């Protein structure tokens, strides 16, 4: 009995008995200890008095009714309240004990400490809550991610679709995997025409090799410098594209920018620039013309008056010689002048040649007198030692004339223009460009004119900038100077002091070497050559020149026959040219002209020498001399005699 009592009191669970009215009649020691109440204080209370508020409500609404209806409840989770107000999680079982008549004797309540279990449950619920929250977060993240991926895909698709450049993805062999809509717009191909095809099949045959090279390099290094090649349009024509691209994960990604239009524009620009250069030259020629006409009139005046004197029968010998020399010198000067003009105006492909600046400068300086007029004194300070540069001679001369014209206008037609060559200079810093190493030829033109206002100095090289009245200048002159200097690897500097004058300095890089042009001068050192009665067929359409040539040749010992054109000449020569030793023909004539005649004769009568005469080198510059002897107009009797003497075989005596 004592054993049972001990079991009741100290069992590892709480025991309580309640009367039919619900009041506790007995509790064991274990329960009293758990709740920290003396057992006596528990007896007499209702079981629900031991519960917290939630337990009371649950007990009254759920468990008490059950106990009434089914006589028991098992494993109900409740919190008991200890004496100190803390709670003890428990599991409660209850069963109604009845007597033989079915009346309630008592209610047996068994209570298990569920602290640990409740804690586990709490932790597991918390873990579940966290897992659910994580699941929700993950789902949201996935949805968000999907939306972002979709957004990004849409943006990429849009960029791909809207790009004005050709976009393509190809495999490492160059087979197209995907192309954008620009291929249809620019090349007329549909994607279905292209995908699966090799890019090479659409490439211009001439561009295949460079394309292959570019594509093979792309696998190791991105193609950043645009590689340009042509693709075939659906209509069979070719369009140019500048390609860039990269190789990633086994695929080639390329972008092709359409450049056909750019090329057309560049070509049009080049044509426009060429036309501009030509017009600049014409401008300079126009500037020259007035001066040249004036100069020529002066020269003609000398010749005319000399000839008038020479006609006087009583002219003393020493005066006759002086006038003769005057005429001869004047003709030389006139010839030189026209020669320079022709060289200057010559249409030639712009190409840099090596020339001696000093020589050219001297030549131009002589000519500048005619440009600037008599009241401007031209001074040249040109050293003797050669100074070679590589530049376009024609442009160089144009530049000098342009600067001289500018100086002339700045001086209002009167003053001093100094041409100076410094062949040991260097290129200083000009307009923000740093100084350049190396030796430069410095050609300066200094005038004593009005100078340039400081606010205009920076603008004078701009095309079409001019301070001159309408009709007096195009504004292209100094821009040509600037362009020429820059293109030649040099520069142009201007220093000006208003009221005192202006110095333009043209810098051109010097090179070591020899002039590529031939010496222009020939010496007349030999004695006066004479003929031995050989027969010359003169072909000349101009009556005066023809008459003059006839007289000269007869005077120096030739017999002559005169034909007025090439056709007539052929008639006179007959089948074998019998009776003629040489043909002396003008080049520019109505009809077939001298050159065609020479060619015919060269074929038919290879032993008959032909001498051509021309005052206008343009024709021969175009066609070449074809190995014919040539004498430039104006020629002297001395020149003509010397050349004929060399060409015509001596008569067998």
């Amino acid at each position, binding site marked *: 009995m004592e054993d049972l009592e001990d079991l009741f009191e100290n069992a590892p669970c709480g025991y309580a008995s309640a009367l039919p*009215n*619900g009041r506790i009649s007995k509790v064991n020691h274990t329960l009293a200890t758990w709740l920290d109440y003396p057992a006596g204080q528990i007896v007499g209370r*209702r079981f*629900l008095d031991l519960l*917290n*508020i*939630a*337990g*009371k*409500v*649950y007990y*009254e*609404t*759920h468990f*008490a*009714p*059950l106990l*009434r*209806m*089914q006589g028991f*409840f*098992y*494993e*109900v*989770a*409740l*919190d008991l309240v200890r004496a100190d107000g803390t709670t003890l*999680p428990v*599991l409660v079982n209850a069963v109604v004990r009845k007597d033989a008549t079915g009346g309630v004797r008592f209610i047996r309540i068994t209570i298990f400490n*569920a602290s640990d279990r*409740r804690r586990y*449950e*709490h932790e*597991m*619920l918390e873990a*579940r809550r966290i897992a659910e929250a994580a699941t929700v977060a993950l789902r949201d993240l996935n949805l968000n991610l999907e939306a972002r991926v979709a957004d990004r895909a849409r943006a990429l698709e849009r960029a791909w679709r809207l790009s004005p450049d050709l976009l393509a993805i190809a495999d490492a062999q160059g087979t197209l995997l995907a192309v954008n809509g620009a291929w249809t717009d620019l090349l007329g191909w549909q994607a279905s025409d292209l995908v699966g095809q090799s890019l090479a099949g659409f490439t211009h045959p001439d561009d295949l090799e460079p394309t292959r090279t570019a594509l093979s390099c792309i696998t190791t290094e991105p193609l950043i410098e645009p590689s340009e090649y042509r693709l075939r349009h659906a209509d069979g024509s070719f369009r140019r594209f500048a390609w860039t691209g990269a190789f990633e994960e086994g695929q080639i990604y390329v972008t092709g920018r359409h450049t056909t239009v750019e090329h057309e524009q560049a070509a049009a620009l080049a044509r426009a620039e060429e036309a501009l250069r030509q017009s600049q030259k014409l401008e300079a020629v126009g500037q020259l013309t007035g001066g040249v006409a004036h100069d020529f009139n002066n020269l003609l005046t000398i010749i005319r008056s000399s000839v008038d004197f020479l006609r006087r029968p009583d002219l003393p010998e020493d005066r006759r010689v002086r006038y003769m020399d005057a005429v001869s010198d004047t003709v030389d000067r006139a010839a030189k002048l026209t020669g320079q003009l022709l060289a200057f105006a010559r249409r030639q492909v712009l190409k840099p040649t090596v020339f001696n600046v000093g020589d050219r400068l001297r030549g131009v300086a002589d000519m500048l007198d005619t440009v600037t007029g008599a009241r401007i004194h031209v001074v040249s300070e040109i050293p003797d030692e050669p100074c070679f540069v590589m530049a376009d001679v024609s442009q160089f001369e144009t530049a000098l004339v342009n600067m001289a014209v500018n100086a002339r206008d700045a001086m209002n037609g009167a003053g001093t223009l100094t041409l100076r060559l410094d062949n040991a200079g260097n290129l200083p810093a000009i307009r923000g460009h740093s100084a350049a190493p190396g030796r430069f030829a410095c050609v300066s033109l200094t005038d004593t004119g009005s100078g340039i206002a400081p606010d205009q100095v920076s603008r004078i090289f701009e095309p079409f900038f001019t301070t001159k009245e309408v009709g007096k200048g195009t504004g292209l002159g100094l821009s040509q100077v600037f362009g020429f200097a820059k293109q030649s690897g040099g520069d142009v500097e201007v220093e000006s002091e208003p009221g005192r004058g202006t110095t333009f300095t043209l810098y051109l890089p010097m090179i070591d070497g020899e002039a590529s042009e031939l010496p222009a001068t020939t010496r007349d050192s030999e004695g006066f050559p004479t003929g031995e009665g050989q027969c010359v067929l003169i072909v000349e359409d101009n009556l005066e020149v023809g008459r003059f040539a006839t007289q000269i040749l007869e005077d120096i010992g030739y017999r002559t026959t005169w034909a007025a054109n090439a056709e007539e000449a052929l008639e006179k020569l007959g089948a074998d040219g019998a009776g003629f030793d040489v043909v002396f023909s003008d080049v520019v004539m109505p009809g077939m002209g001298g050159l065609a005649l020479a060619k015919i004769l060269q074929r038919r009568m290879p032993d008959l020498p032909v001498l051509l005469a021309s005052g206008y080198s343009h024709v021969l510059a175009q066609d070449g001399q074809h190995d014919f002897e040539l004498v430039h107009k104006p020629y002297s009797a001395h020149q003509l005699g010397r050349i004929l003497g060399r060409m015509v075989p001596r008569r067998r005596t």
Partner: protein
Amino acid sequence: MSVVRRHNVKQGGTSGTAMVFAHGFGCDQNMWRFVAPAFEDRYRTILFDHIGAGGSDLAAYDVERYATLDGYADDVVELCRGLSVTGGVFVGHSVSAMIGVLAAKKAPELFASLVLVCPSPRYLDDDGYVGGFTRPQVEELLEFLDTNHMGWSQAMAPTIMGNADRPELSEELTNSFCRMDPDIAKRFARATFLADNRADLADVKARCLVIQSSEDVIAPQEVGAYVHRHLADSAFALLDATGHCPNLSAPAETIAAIAEFLREPSGG
């Protein structure tokens, strides 16, 4: 689905005056198993389960509709009209006492008499009003409901394992009398314990009986007295029985009180 099926309606008794029994929070119509039969000889007894309880149609549960007691009162009106109840007797236990008050207000023709067993128009104490619960106590109760720490220990496993959609696994084993969907029970508790229907008492035109238990932690005597005081026409019966469910713990005393009330002439 018909109202009868939806609410698991069980009718008994004669074809006389309808006597509608409504259960409170925690149980189902079994709550009336010791009381209703006593009236079958004179009344048409109607027992039903609130949506979410017993054999009701759980699919009919609507969170918004049942967020307050109004939704339950609407159910009673609909159910009684469906069963052609007029001038009947409404017997409501606990929270259903107030559901009956609301239903009578909505459709006065339904009931001539209301029997309010352990009623409370407001569980929370208020200025000058004793409801029996302080605010922290109500909050503690609702928190326990939310955390599932109280009640059937077997219900914890499916809650933890996430198969709470099969509560029958645990419920069937332990309890064939007081079945209630755990989620709905939580919401019902919230609707019950946060309700304040004191103002509705004055609108009741029917005769009322307030049955008050001697010791009731959920509806103390002060509350029963308050209800009695604020009803226009009510009788008050204080039982010797203790606890919140005299209909189970003291059915005879409860039956006697109701029978006596119904025997009294109208207006007496």
